[in-house]
């Protein structure tokens, strides 16, 4: 298959189209505006739905409406604007709608800046919406993975009827890499037994989250959590790099894994026994894998382009079996291969 040189943003947009996205709804924000720009052209060419929404609140609710009919629909946004969507993400999780949200992180808090950062790990995995709910979160670390995981986002969203976030950052979104646009590799999931398609030759259907009857609410949340258990059992994905016999396992997600790998290569050349574990699904988190590695390694080092967010999940998973250190900066440029290698050597000495 031929390789194309493309940016993360365009890779995500084209992959969404290949996945059969029926509707894109969005509002601009750097560093992901090119997704909406690309979609404005391509979706109209294909006569699919495209709306320049008046805000991210409107955009996510347009996606809510579209997905309630079984359409494949998405929005894309960033940091402070994803914050605006939190109420609706909670509704969408409660309504069990197959929404895809591409969240391209910028550095925060507040307006922050468009530097690459991973400051929205908590926003994506814990979320700011109300109540008990969970969102599937996938984190690419290459432009090729932007494609593969966009496909997977649509698939998992449909399969579990659950909102799914593709969590990228400004670095991945803006840089170019050679990629292969393979075809959407997943089976289509039937929407027949739940989607709103008009009450013809069947009873009318309603999709809603309001639960004035206590037992209905309790039952519904339990149904959701049974589903989350399935997701946790079946969908964990991670990358392991040189973890065999590693005394130190560096763990990280997303684009910073690229620097981490280079640093590990440098350290290995110097004879240091160091490896890497990279969660690809941030929810479901690879808890079992950490527990397994904690039996053989002496230490974990979590590296993030933030002040320490995923490290809490790592510590919960490792549960005190071995120490878990943290090294990070809120903006990505300040975590060079040399910085990371130096930190690894410091912990080894």
């Amino acid at each position, binding site marked *: 298959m031929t390789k194309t040189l493309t940016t993360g943003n365009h890779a995500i947009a084209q992959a969404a189209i290949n996945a059969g996205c029926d*509707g894109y709804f969005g509002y601009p924000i750097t560093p992901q505006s090119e997704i909406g720009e690309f979609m404005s052209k391509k979706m109209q060419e294909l006569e699919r739905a495209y709306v320049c929404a008046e805000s991210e609140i409107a955009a996510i609710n347009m996606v809510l409406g*579209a997905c309630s009919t079984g359409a494949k629909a998405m929005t894309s946004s960033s940091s402070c604007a994803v914050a605006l969507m939190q109420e609706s993400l909670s509704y969408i999780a409660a309504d069990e709608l197959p929404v895809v949200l591409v969240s391209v992180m910028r550095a925060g808090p507040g307006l922050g800046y468009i530097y690459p950062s991973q400051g929205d790990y908590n926003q994506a995995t814990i979320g700011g919406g109300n109540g008990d709910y969970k969102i599937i979160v996938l984190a690419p670390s290459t432009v090729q993975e932007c494609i593969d995981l966009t496909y997977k986002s649509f698939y998992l969203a449909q399969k579990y009827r659950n909102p799914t976030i593709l969590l990228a950052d400004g670095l991945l979104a803006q840089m170019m890499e050679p990629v292969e646009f393979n075809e959407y590799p997943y089976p289509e999931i039937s929407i027949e037994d739940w989607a709103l398609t*008009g009450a013809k030759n069947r009873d009318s*259907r309603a999709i809603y989250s309001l639960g004035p009857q206590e037992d209905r609410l309790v039952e519904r949340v339990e149904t959701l959590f049974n589903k989350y258990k399935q997701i946790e059992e079946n969908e964990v994905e991670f990358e392991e790099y040189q973890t065999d016999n590693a005394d130190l396992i560096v763990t990280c997600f997303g684009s910073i894994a690229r620097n981490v790998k280079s640093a590990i290569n440098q350290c290995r050349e110097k004879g240091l026994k160091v490896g890497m574990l990279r969660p690809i699904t941030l929810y479901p988190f690879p808890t079992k894998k950490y527990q397994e590695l904690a039996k053989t390694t002496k230490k974990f080092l979590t590296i993030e382009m933030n002040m320490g967010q995923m490290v809490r999940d790592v510590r919960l998973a490792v549960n005190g079996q071995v120490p878990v250190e943290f090294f990070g900066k809120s903006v990505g440029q300040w975590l060079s291969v040399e910085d990371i290698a130096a930190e690894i050597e410091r912990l080894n000495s």
Partner: protein
Amino acid sequence: MIKTTEKSVFKLPKSLKAGMKFPFCAGCDHGVAIRLVAEVLDEMNLREKTIAVASIGCSVMLYDYLDTDCVEAPHGRALAAATGVKRTNKDKFVLTYQGDGDFASIGLAESLHAALRGEKVSAICINNTTYGMTGGQAGPTTIMGQITKTSPNGRNEEYYGYPIKIAEQVALCDGTAYSARCSLDSIANIKKTKEAIRKTFEVQLQGLGFGFVEILSTCPTNWHLTPQESHERVRNELFQVYPLGVYKEV
């Protein structure tokens, strides 16, 4: 010998769920409005292709009354959700049913932008000059001087500013095909309201643009009036601030 024949003179529209009961307070107009919507859906044969969008307010459980497919939108976002439904399902009939707080306060951006984009959907807005569901606080349509739970001395311009004229605002949007204000205070006005609802549905089916009807409605519980007095208030106080009529028809 007396011959008796049975003739049905009153029945529920098919677009209302069999056996459903409106839970609204005595004298509240929500039930009348929803019934009218159901009658027009029946008469225009739309039930099977309808996807209704329920909003947050006293009418939130729309799906318990309407026998059509229905999705609930977060407070104020009904027209965004309706946009998503319609844009991905051009052959469906899409309808929102919202309170004035939902439509014109928290959801004003979503409402007016749907009208500006000329979304081919129909929106019905119940204006009872208060946030009914949360217990009768001052809202965007609360009229000057009106006492509510959060305007204990009556609405004044210093603290609250001025009420919004929804049907007029919607009529100003280029994407609007029909905008009217109606009332349910008399048989004659109920009939006119039904015709306005029909019109908002027709402009959608004809692909002409956004269809809108604002319905002046009662809230006896929060107005602290009897049902009769409530309709008198609609006539004596609201008609001056919110004149009935068709504000746009293309």
